[in-house]
């Protein structure tokens, strides 16, 4: 596992150095990550960056399992967040998810695979184009990205593929918290002779088909993704559609209804 990793940052840091003169040095990274230069160039495209406490990444201090590390991102006190990108600096594939909070709170939670100890960071972009960055350092032992999924070994994986479980928890602040689990192997393509096979996007829509939240997902999202959104509540009753597609073109489609108040 380590080999692929260590080579990548070295090569890339050379690229960054070569570009320093024209691009201007990136602002100093409070996490001192060796991949920060690359993140700044390639993912944030050298935009204006502020390290901002209002962008909170919550994750365990130490990952108990590298295959399912829970991460949540909440932006508090920033208006007009147009997108949030989740990045695990020292994974072979850094970009993990891109969230578009159309009519949702600037919050989402999911689980990620970790190749080794790394900063997990969220970059929230506001309407003015500025990136607001928060992050957390998570200790981990390693190997999460180059191991085949559990489902790869199961003969009947196809019969449950893209099955959806979901539940809604109404909150007092006019928010419905929706948590969903999609059955999917989420193979990264980095394990020998197993091509990449992963969910590419997931949408929450209301009954009228209006998209409330959109999440683009990449290979490092954990097998059987468990994803949480907070959307403006549909009302006392009603529900939401959950839809998406994987990179093979297999569709995800489900409807989740609010439980009647008891």
């Amino acid at each position, binding site marked *: 596992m380590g080999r692929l990793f260590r080579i990548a940052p070295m090569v890339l840091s050379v690229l960054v150095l070569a570009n320093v003169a024209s691009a201007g040095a990136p602002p100093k990274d409070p996490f001192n990550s060796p991949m920060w230069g690359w993140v700044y160039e390639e993912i944030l495209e050298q935009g204006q960056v502020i390290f901002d406490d209002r962008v909170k990444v919550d994750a365990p201090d130490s990952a108990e399992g590298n295959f399912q590390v829970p991460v949540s991102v909440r932006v508090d006190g920033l208006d007009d967040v147009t997108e949030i990108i989740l990045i695990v600096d020292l994974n072979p594939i850094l970009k993990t998810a891109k969230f578009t909070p159309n009519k949702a709170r600037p919050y989402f939670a999911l689980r990620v695979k970790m190749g080794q100890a790394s900063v997990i960071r969220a970059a929230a972009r506001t309407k003015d184009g500025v990136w607001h960055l928060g992050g957390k350092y998570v200790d981990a032992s390693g190997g999460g990205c180059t191991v085949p999924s559990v489902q790869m070994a199961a*003969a*009947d*994986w*196809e*019969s449950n593929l893209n099955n959806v479980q979901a539940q809604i928890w109404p909150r007092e602040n006019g928010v419905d918290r929706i948590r969903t689990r999609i059955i999917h*192997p989420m193979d990264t393509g980095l394990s020998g*002779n197993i*091509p*990449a*096979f992963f969910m590419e996007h997931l949408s929450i829509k209301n009954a009228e088909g209006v998209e409330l939240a959109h999440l683009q997902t990449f290979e490092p999202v954990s097998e059987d993704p468990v994803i949480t959104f907070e959307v403006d509540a549909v009302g006392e009753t009603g529900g939401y559609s959950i839809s998406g*597609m994987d*990179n*093979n*073109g*297999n*569709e995800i489609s489900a409807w989740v209804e609010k439980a009647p108040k008891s």
Partner: protein
Amino acid sequence: MNFIKTTLALAGGAAIAVSSMSSQAQAGVTDADIANDSKTTHQIVTNGMGRKGQRFSPLKIVNKSNVKKLLPVWSFSFGGEKQRGQESQPLIYDGVMYVTSSYSRIFAVDVKTGEELWQYDARLPDGIMPCCDVINRGAALYGDLVYFGTLDAKLVALDRKTGKVKWKKKLGDYKAGYSFTAAPFIVKGNVITGVSGGEFGIVGKVEARNAETGELVWSRPTIEGHMGMLNGKPSTMTGKLNATWPGDMWKSGGGATWLGGNYDDETDTIFYGAGNPAPWNSHLRKGDNLYAASRLAINPDNGEIKWHLQTTPWEGWDYDGVNEVVSFNAGGKKLAATADRNGFFYVMDRTNGKLQNATPFVEQISWASSIDVKTGRPNFIDSNRAGDPTKSADGKKGKAIFAVPSFLGGKNWMPMAYSQNSGLFYVPSNEWGMDLWNEPVTYKKGAAYLGAGFTIKPLFEDYIGSLKAIDPMDGSIKWELKNNAPLWAGVMTTAGGLVFTGNPEGYFMALDDATGKVLWKFQTGSGIVSQPVTWEENGEQYFAVVSGWGGAVPLWGGDVAKRIKHLNQGGSVWVFKMPK
């Protein structure tokens, strides 16, 4: 310099915006591109190098006098440990080669450099049931999409530039034995497909889907009694219920449309073949069993059958009727030819299916003495039908016979070519027979539905494969090239007087179209069971062929195994041209 680049990029962006706003965007491969593919030399956008499936190129930059100079330009590996039979025909468009491979994969490769642009790997369920290796025979291009079928019976439409999925539709239930490995094709804005699975008692069908959305437009089952569909509603029944099928046997009657079809614009007809009736044991289904073992002429607008030619009525030897129908014009007539599994070469009037002639193209045919040109029916040799097991002493095994051709056919899937240069057909055939006997069987979803046992045997000590040049006017054989192993590759011919094909021994070969003499050959490192192509760029003629041994022969080969067991697997594309 920077300034110029920026301007161009902006202009390009604007053009894209405009075309995507128009609903009839003609970006990418157009109907005209497809209609003119047989005459256009700088690209290949159809399977068959032209809709009629002639596999004839007007190019003659490379010809009999200089073909020996051909050298490889690049080779591209499909990689992985998934090296099985590679039966694909590459497509060439806009500087990109689109080529499919074993295990339902498709690759976009830079034609100049052989570098991969993208790759799509279908994640296949463990339960797929391909009868005859995990092959794929090619893709279709239309607009900005590229289409191909998968072993779990899905049709996938991908953005040709990125490889991202636009849509994916289910053609059948893979758990019931359906799969799809043929190259789809485009007719009037629809993508046309069939299904494989005849060995599992599926029911064959030809279907048209809107190429942009994948929505079903029409569906035509190949077995009588089944209902067709048009625009979301039942249309007409195929044939007449129980006219040629006894009892309920039509419900799992086979007629798999596993080899793809083509389209003739002059008669506005889709030609598609239907496989053997199921099960193999013919005593369970007395009657002609329409439209199994037939060629169907289908109206592309509604999926109605215009006419049919059943090459083997009451089929009992696994003589599928799927082999390609190649349209050509000669003697002022609109004709079509097909070389059947049953060993006869048929030439018909393609406006009505009436036979012009039907002649044997392999040796020692045992099941019929001839074909009646008036009726189109074979003159059967009744003693060469395997016996009814219920009439045997223990009821478990009917009387065995030795029949020629074998169940793999005088000719199998590998497409022949028609030369406008020589007026001849170049037919890859095999000389073999089989011991065949019937057994009792009942239909069970997803289980093999044969009711027969068999073993294949070569007819001659020194060869099985035989590439033949056939004159369609009288069926006479002008020359023959013998090959030790069975031939399993398609053929292509050029105005340069050349015939190209490959053999399981790994050679990509160029032959003199008048004599069959091998003028050039190149060892590709694994067996060739695919479909070669040629095209032109900047005044140079290029050739491509996929190499990778496999297909049905090593799986079913019986005694034939002796001649092929030393052949190694592979999975690559080779591209050739003459050095400048």
